[in-house]
């Protein structure tokens, strides 16, 4: 995986030197596609190797079963021969006993030989088992790697489609607005709409107040023609002037 990123980075530097960063996306697609093909091939090889290994293991297991059967057979012979040897010895047939003893020695040697073969066969199977586990791991990792590579390639391709589409829209609207529909323009549009809404609200308010005659009254009040609401200082002044009437009914100053 890191190999892919190194290749992409090399392509990026190369492109920066040659034809500008525009070539990066194209190179990325090419490199990713090649990488996917390579990974696919590796995966196929690993699957073939796994099938071969499992076949060999299966053959070896058959051999092992045959060897174990042989071992059982020898065990049976050995038991029988030893029984006969003991019976001969008990009944004093020493020649017969010696014959069976020799036979038992021979069978025991075969038995030991078979045991060694079984041990060897078992270790071969165990080795196959290890290789199979490693190959299975490799296949799982390879499948995950291919999935990631394919997603990366898909992302790059989808982005290219989106880039081409937004470039086409930008080119088509270039006559009216050079930076049509970028987020910055939208932000400015939102703010302009908000300002317009505020201005509209102000205009509506002043229209409404004029309509109800408030605007004229307000102007008259400010001119002192219509008495306004008493300010605190006026109240204090009135109280100082005539404190015999604290209920506020004092005559106007």
């Amino acid at each position, binding site marked *: 995986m890191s190999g892919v990123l190194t290749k992409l980075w090399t392509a990026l530097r190369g492109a920066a030197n040659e034809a*500008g960063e525009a070539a990066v996306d194209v190179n990325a697609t090419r490199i990713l596609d090649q990488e996917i093909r390579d990974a696919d091939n590796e995966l196929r090889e690993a699957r073939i190797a796994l099938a071969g290994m499992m076949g060999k293991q299966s053959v070896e297991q058959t051999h092992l079963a045959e060897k174990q059967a042989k071992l059982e057979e020898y065990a049976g012979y050995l038991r029988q021969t030893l029984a006969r040897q003991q019976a001969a010895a008990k009944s004093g047939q020493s020649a017969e006993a010696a014959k069976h003893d020799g036979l038992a020695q021979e069978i025991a040697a075969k038995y030991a030989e078979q045991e060694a073969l079984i041990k060897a066969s078992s270790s071969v199977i165990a080795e196959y088992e290890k290789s199979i586990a490693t190959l299975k791991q490799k296949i799982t990792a390879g499948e995950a790697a291919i999935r990631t590579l394919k997603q990366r390639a898909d*992302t790059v391709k989808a*982005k290219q489609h*989106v880039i081409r*589409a*937004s470039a086409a829209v930008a080119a088509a609207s270039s006559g009216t607005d050079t930076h049509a529909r970028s987020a*910055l323009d*939208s*932000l400015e549009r939102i703010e302009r709409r908000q300002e317009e809404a505020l201005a509209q609200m102000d205009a509506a308010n002043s229209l409404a107040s004029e309509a109800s005659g408030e605007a004229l009254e307000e102007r008259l009040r400010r001119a002192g023609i219509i008495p306004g609401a008493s300010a605190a200082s006026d109240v204090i002044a009135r109280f100082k002037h005539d404190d015999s009437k604290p209920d506020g009914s004092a005559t106007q100053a």
Partner: protein
Amino acid sequence: MREVWILSQHAPVLLKVEKLLRKPNAHPLIHALKGVSTAMSNPLVTTQSLLPGLQSGELGASGRYTFSLLEGLEPVIQATAHDYGDVNVYIAVTGEIAVAQATLFPVSRVRDTARLNDRVLRTEKLFDLANICIDTHPDGSEFYVIYGALRATSSLADIEYEIDTLARNAVDAAAAYREFVR
């Protein structure tokens, strides 16, 4: 025993399946079918198959968004977010990946790209589900863009959420980085 209805050209495959299913141990087949049923429950969308869903979905039906298909070599969906100053979000599906993207501003309008890039790298994490990068248009002009990628098996609700989040993030990002743009 049961009758099955299939296309006649699939008969050889059915025969194999039948033989496998006669065995008491049909695990590999059952396992394989599990993969098929998950894929079938949420099929991969394509750009074309996504459009009607978006148009009749929550964003389109409420009038908050307008969706249209931009025909071209590869069709792309254009989403216009009316809540976010009509910002355009472009959506394309390729294979297993769907990408939604909005243009922030042209690189040519940035006063100090080094300082902006530094700011972007430090603040990009604030924009959920989105990445910010520089794209080059075929004519060589460059743009800061914000985009999100998701799996093409995502539900319509997830794709709508991605689009709506992206439109909001695009305007927020433009506001956050405006001081660097002339």
